C-alpha cells in the first residue's frame, strides 16, 4: 500500500525539530532513516499528520571517543557503524551485530537512533545497548536527560521518549581490559528479524566470568537482561552450573507465540544460545556439546 497523506517539515536543527514536535505532539512522527517508519506508514499501521524529517541535521551525525566514552550520534547509519574503526575497537559487539540488521540496502539508510526509538523487541540494536550498558541521550525543550538503556525500553515499540522529545545520541563505555562479546541469532533468512537472539558483553578473567551481561531479544516485549547470568559469575563453570543457569533462564523467560515460533521453541533456542555463548567466551567447546538447535 501507499502511505496516507501527511505534511512534511524538514528540520534545520535539533532546536527546530523540538519546536515542531512541541506544536504537533502526537500528530507528528520523526523521520530519520525511515527504514521502520516508512514500512509502518506504507502498511497504514500509522498515519501521522506531520513528518518531521531530521535527516539533514548535521549535529546528530558522527562517532566520537572521549574519556572512555564512545558517543554515537542518532543519525549514524548502520553502514557507518559497520565500517567504523572506532566501533570495531571500542564496541566490537556492535560491529558483529550490525551485519545481522536487515540487508545492505536497508543498512545504507537505517540509523541507530531510529532503530532504538522504534524499539522493536526482535531487533538487534536495543539488545546490544542493554548488553553494553549504554546511556540514551534525549533532548526536549526543557533540556537534556540521560536514561540507562535498561530503563529506556518499556514495551513493544514503546520507550521512555515523550512525543515532544528527540533521541540525540547514545553513549557507550569503551570496552575494558579482558572484555569479550558474543552475538548470535536464529532467523529464517539472513537479515530478517530474529526468532531468538542473544547479545552478550562479558569480562573474562582467567577461566571465569568477572561480569556477564546476557541480553536476549525476541523473547519478550523488550530486551531481556538475564538474571540467570549471576549463576555463572565468579565461579569455575561446570556442566552442572551451566545446566542450573539454563534452568533459571528457562524459568525467567516468558516468550511470546507468533507465526515464527512457540514459547517453548523460543525457550529452547535461548538455552542453546546460552550454552554456545558460555562455551565460546570461556573457550571450552565441550560445554556446548550435547546441546543442539
Amino acid at each position, binding site marked *: 500500500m*501507499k502511505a496516507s497523506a501527511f*505534511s512534511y517539515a524538514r528540520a534545520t536543527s535539533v532546536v527546530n525539530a523540538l519546536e515542531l514536535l512541541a506544536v504537533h505532539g502526537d500528530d507528528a512522527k520523526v523521520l530519520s532513516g*525511515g*527504514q521502520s517508519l*516508512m514500512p509502518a506508514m506504507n502498511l497504514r499501521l500509522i498515519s501521522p499528520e506531520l513528518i518531521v524529517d531530521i535527516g539533514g541535521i548535521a549535529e546528530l551525525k558522527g562517532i566520537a571517543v572521549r574519556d572512555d566514552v564512545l558517543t554515537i550520534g542518532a543519525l549514524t547509519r548502520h*553502514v557507518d557503524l559497520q565500517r567504523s574503526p572506532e566501533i570495531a575497537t571500542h564496541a566490537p559487539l556492535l560491529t558483529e551485530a550490525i551485519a545481522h540488521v536487515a540487508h*545492505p*540496502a*536497508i543498512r545504507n*539508510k537505517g540509523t541507530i537512533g531510529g532503530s532504538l526509538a522504534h524499539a522493536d523487541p526482535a531487533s538487534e540494536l536495543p539488545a546490544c545497548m542493554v548488553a553494553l550498558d549504554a546511556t540514551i541521550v534525549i533532548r526536549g525543550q526543557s533540556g537534556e536527560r540521560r536514561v540507562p538503556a535498561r530503563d529506556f525500553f518499556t514495551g513493544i515499540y514503546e520507550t521512555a521518549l515523550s512525543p515532544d522529545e528527540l533521541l540525540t545520541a547514545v553513549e557507550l563505555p569503551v570496552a575494558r581490559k579482558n572484555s569479550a562479546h558474543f552475538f548470535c541469532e536464529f532467523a529464517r533468512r539472513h537479515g530478517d528479524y530474529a526468532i531468538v537472539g542473544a547479545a552478550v558483553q562479558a569480562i573474562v578473567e582467567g577461566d571465569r566470568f568477572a561480569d556477564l551481561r546476557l541480553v536476549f531479544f525476541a523473547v519478550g516485549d523488550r530486551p531481556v537482561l538475564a538474571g540467570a547470568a549471576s549463576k555463572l559469575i565468579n565461579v569455575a563453570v561446570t556442566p552442572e552450573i551451566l545446566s542450573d543457569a539454563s534452568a533459571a533462564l528457562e524459568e525467567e523467560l516468558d516468550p511470546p507465540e507468533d507465526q515464527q515460533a512457540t514459547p517453548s521453541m523460543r525457550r529452547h533456542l535461548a538455552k542453546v544460545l546460552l550454552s554456545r555463548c558460555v562455551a565460546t567466551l570461556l573457550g571450552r567447546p565441550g560445554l556446548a556439546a550435547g546441546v543442539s538447535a
Partner: protein
Amino acid sequence: MTAHVEISLDVNGERVDAHVLPRLNLADFLREHLQLTGTHVGCEHGVCGACTVRVNGDIVRSCLMLAVQADNASVETIEGLSDSGEIADLQAAFRDRNALQCGFCTPGMLMAAQDLLRQCPAPDREQIREHLSGNYCRCTGYQAIIDAVETTARARVGTKP
C-alpha cells in the same frame, strides 16, 4: 496541510525538477513521474528488494524513501546502469545462466549484485548470498543468480570460473 514540495535531483545524470506530494515515495516518483519503470514495486515495505536503486552511490529501497528526501541527491536506476554499459557483463551472465525467468526481481538483483562487486571484487558464494539476502526471487531458486554473479566477478578479476 499537504502541500506540494519542490524538489531538484539528478536522475541517471540528468537534472530533474518537480513538485511532489510528501507521501510520494521515490519508487513511484521514478515510475509514474519519470516513466522509469525498470524500478519495480513489489511489497512496498522493504522486504522484497525489487525497488532497489542507488542514491548518492549507495543502494537503497526506493519504496522506503520519500521523493522529498531525494532532494539534491543523485539517483541511479537500472535504466542508468544498463544504458551506460556498467553492468552489461552482469546482464549477459544472468541471461547465459538462466538467472531470471519472469524478470520481476531482476532490476533489484542487478543493482544489489553490482553493489557487491563494487565493494568486493572477488566474493565467495556465501558473501554473494548474504549481499543478495534482501532480494526475493520467486522463480529461479537463487542458485543460477549466485552462479551469474560469481561468473561475472571471476571474469572481471580475470580468473577462469
